[in-house]
């Protein structure tokens, strides 16, 4: 089952997603992968990654690092050296970081085609794995007038979100630890 999870910042999305992915893997006796999407650029990022790795310690995740071209990870290896199996359960945290990586490459020239391209890649990833928990961020309800580039990023992320909610069997909004299922398997 593919699952889409979104909500505000620090609302408990990742924790809920981790629990769900672990349950899915345990129920079906499948490998459990954590798809780490952040590309570290400085010591602050590296410290954050270290913290995230230690927070996931003991959860049973085999970590895969893939910041761009997400489907390529299916023919790669995990940090611990295991070959990745597309039939495992994947936790992709987050769609938001993937879009940043694809849209704002290190050379500084924004790639405005990135949202359309990534929407196709994520749809393919959902189809190829069939058991992915996608985590995104709800960044659409503030009273601020953004610059055109930031606005394009918000519009792009919303395209990815709507693409994924169309594909995923379950769509969950997390609000401060509470969950609301907007789409349930077999209901819509």
């Amino acid at each position: 089952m593919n699952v889409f999870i979104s909500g505000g910042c620090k609302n408990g999305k990742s924790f809920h997603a981790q629990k769900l992915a672990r349950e899915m893997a345990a129920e079906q006796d499948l490998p459990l992968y954590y798809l780490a999407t952040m590309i570290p650029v400085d010591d602050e990022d590296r410290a954050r990654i270290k913290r995230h790795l230690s927070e996931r310690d003991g959860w049973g995740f085999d970590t895969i690092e893939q910041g761009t071209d997400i489907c390529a990870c299916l023919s790669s290896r995990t940090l611990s050296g295991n070959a990745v199996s597309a039939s495992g359960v994947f936790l992709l945290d987050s769609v938001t970081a993937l879009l940043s990586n694809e849209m704002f490459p290190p050379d500084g020239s924004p790639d405005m085609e990135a949202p359309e391209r990534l929407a196709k890649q994520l749809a393919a990833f959902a189809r190829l794995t069939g058991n992915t928990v996608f985590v995104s961020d709800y960044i659409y309800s503030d009273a601020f007038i953004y610059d055109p580039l930031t606005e394009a990023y918000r519009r792009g992320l919303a395209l990815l979100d709507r693409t994924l909610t169309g594909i995923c069997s379950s769509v969950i909004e997390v609000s401060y630890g509470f969950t609301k299922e907007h789409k349930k398997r077999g209901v819509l």
Partner: protein
Amino acid sequence: MVLIFGGAYQGKSDFALRTFGLEEKDLFFCTVDNTPDWGAKALCNAEQLFLQLTKNNVDVVRFLSDNIDKLEDKIITVNDVSQGVVPIDSTLRAWREATGRAMLFLASNSCQVYRVFCGIEERIK
């Protein structure tokens, strides 16, 4: 009156199109500097009209109640701008509050209210 709200780019006008048998020509998109077309079946991005009114020091709820007869058969979509940081700019701050009050007014006067989240609607009234 039908109120459809949700965050930016969530698919509010798409929902209006597919649910209420509308065509693109039936939608009027408000901006900070256009005048609402009261003949349109749906007024979209009404928060932009509220920003325009706020900038012109017009009380938004007063404006809506003065025009309630024109709104009666309308479908109105509003981008919910209530959930971010309080803006430092006083106009945007006033706009954020005016939009909240306007949505309360519209919701209480609507026979149907929907929230759209990532392309999925939920009827809440």
